[in-house]
């Protein structure tokens, strides 16, 4: 996966001059993702030139990525006027503006002498008549989907000013069998549902996988030794390791932002649960809470200085709420005050928001609030849904939802406006998604 090589394609003499000289100055093409309602940007994505179907395959993945983001509206290929025959030459911009394509993507795929694939692409601003990006990538042919996602990320970043999230993976729990004897397997896939494979065999219940921010590693909870415990799993080798052999259940694990610690809940003898952090090198544990309450679902702020968690320490029956404390356990403070029960807080990778599950009036909602608890917004509401996880750019959440009577959960993504909800394809029922960082 590391043998992706990127070089920049200069605009070149071919494309320059002509465009800049003739066309009037034009505002830089950019999508303002902070606006309340974003009008999707019309973009024409041509099939990359190639001797086989690979060119069309790559542009198809790019188009699907951009469309699912909700920020782009790919123009129907049937409307295209100009047929790109040489992607090194500036296109006839008027052929693209007349079909209202504000951006244009062209490219070419060739095979190198050593068997690697070379993918070149250019992103054009059709109204300004300018090349915005020109790059080429070399990779094994087997990695063609990654090349496509990287190009889609490059386009997304150039046109929104935000980092992309398409070259990422999702680890989740695949569910099969009847509900009372459900078989659960850890599985991993690309964020668009492709390249799915299993990481465990289904012989034990496995729950709540989470990606390491720094390594090809996940932490999760498993019943494989009877008493449920937190484990580490190396994605590439399949090697599993018990994080700590406590006499009581450990659960709700999550990595620290530097990847050096796992923070989790440990069951006390009295039936309550407190939060501990374990240093993965020294295996030293640090107690972070000490309450006769349920303290669980800890999640670090991206700078590692704070932890958001769920607790019912406020009393009353089942009043689980969201609290923030220092990473050393200091100064815990409740931040959720709305009508209902709050849980599963997850700190945004941007640091600005906390995503959560809220139960109110018999419904389960996915929402976000600022880190002081203000500005709560509900993005999605349903019969049973929970477990939000952030895309690495902090613009999109994935979660799982079970419709009443459907028999099991499926995965969905939703953007921060709450307007662009998309099903994430999985072959079976699926739950507990966790989004990876951008791949290296």
């Amino acid at each position, binding site marked *: 996966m590391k043998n992706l090589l990127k070089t920049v394609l200069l605009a070149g003499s071919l494309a320059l001059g002509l465009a800049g000289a003739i066309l009037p100055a034009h505002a830089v093409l950019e999508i303002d993702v902070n606006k309340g309602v974003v009008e999707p940007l019309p973009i024409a994505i041509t099939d990359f030139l190639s001797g086989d179907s690979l060119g069309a395959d790559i542009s198809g993945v790019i188009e699907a990525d951009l469309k699912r983001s909700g920020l782009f509206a790919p123009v129907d290929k049937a409307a295209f006027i100009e047929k790109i025959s040489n992607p090194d030459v500036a296109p006839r911009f008027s052929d693209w503006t007349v079909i209202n394509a504000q951006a244009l993507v062209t490219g070419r795929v060739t095979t190198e002498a050593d068997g690697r694939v070379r993918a070149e692409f250019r992103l054009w601003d059709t109204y300004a008549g300018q090349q915005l990006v020109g790059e080429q990538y070399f990779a094994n042919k087997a990695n063609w989907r990654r090349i496509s996602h990287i190009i889609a990320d490059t386009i997304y970043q150039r046109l929104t000013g935000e980092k992309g999230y398409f070259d990422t993976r999702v680890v989740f729990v695949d569910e099969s069998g*009847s*509900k*009372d*004897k*459900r078989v*659960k397997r850890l599985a991993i896939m690309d964020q668009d549902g492709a390249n799915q494979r299993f990481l465990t065999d*289904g*012989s*034990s*219940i496995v*729950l*709540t996988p989470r990606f390491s921010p720094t390594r090809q590693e996940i932490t999760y*909870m498993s*019943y*494989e030794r*009877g*008493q*449920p415990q937190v484990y580490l799993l190396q994605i590439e080798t399949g090697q599993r390791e018990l994080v700590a052999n406590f006499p009581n*259940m450990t*659960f*709700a694990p999550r990595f620290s932002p530097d990847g050096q610690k796992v923070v989790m*809940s440990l*069951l006390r*003898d*009295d*039936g*309550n*649960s407190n939060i501990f952090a374990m240093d993965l090198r020294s295996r030293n544990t640090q107690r972070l809470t000490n309450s006769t309450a*349920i303290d*669980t*679902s800890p999640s670090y702020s991206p700078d590692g200085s704070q932890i958001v968690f*769920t607790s019912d320490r406020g009393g009353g*029956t*089942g009043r*689980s709420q969201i609290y923030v404390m220092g990473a050393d356990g200091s100064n815990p403070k409740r931040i959720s005050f709305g009508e209902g*029960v709050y*849980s*599963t807080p997850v700190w945004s990778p941007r640091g600005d928001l906390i995503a959560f*599950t809220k*139960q109110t009036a018999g419904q389960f909602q996915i929402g976000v609030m600022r880190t002081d608890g203000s500005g709560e917004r509900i993005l999605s509401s349903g*019969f*049973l849904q*929970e*477990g939000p996880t952030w895309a690495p750019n902090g613009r999109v959440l994935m979660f799982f939802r079970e419709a*009443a*009577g459907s028999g099991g959960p499926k995965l969905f993504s939703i953007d921060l406006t709450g307007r662009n909800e998309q099903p994430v394809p999985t072959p079976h029922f699926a*739950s*507990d998604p966790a989004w990876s960082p951008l791949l290296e």
Partner: protein
Amino acid sequence: MSRIETMTKAPVMLALAAMLAVAGCASKNEIPNSAADLGIGGAGAPGSPQEFTVKVGDRIFFDTDSSAIRADAQATLARQAQWLAQYPTYQITIEGHADERGTREYNLALGARRAAATRDFLVARGVPGTRINTISYGKERPVAVCDDISCWSQNRRAVTVLRGAGS
């Protein structure tokens, strides 16, 4: 007589084998002792898992998001404690469960709290703590699978599972 016994035993053994095969989390010497799981109706012999399940009652139920032992549950646990005193070779595992109307990690903690509350009640009634293990299944192992309150109330439970052979 013996022929009928053989015929009635066969499905029980099959059900038992299926349970062990599916429940990868259960250790091999655990005895699934729910009447429904075993597919039997009779009360069973004195001191048998069947008697414990059917006559004594192997499970108690909880209110929503609560681990308080209700009055009806106290009566069941009192019978369990008495029976366990009478048959002291059994070890037990108390499984704590939650319904699906909560989030996964919170429900793991809630199931653990219910198992602990059940254990503490039995210990107070004289069952040695050394005979008792607890485990939480959160909302992972519902017994009733409809999408309304009639099922959820059955799933909020603690089940006392006998381990080891009786005398």
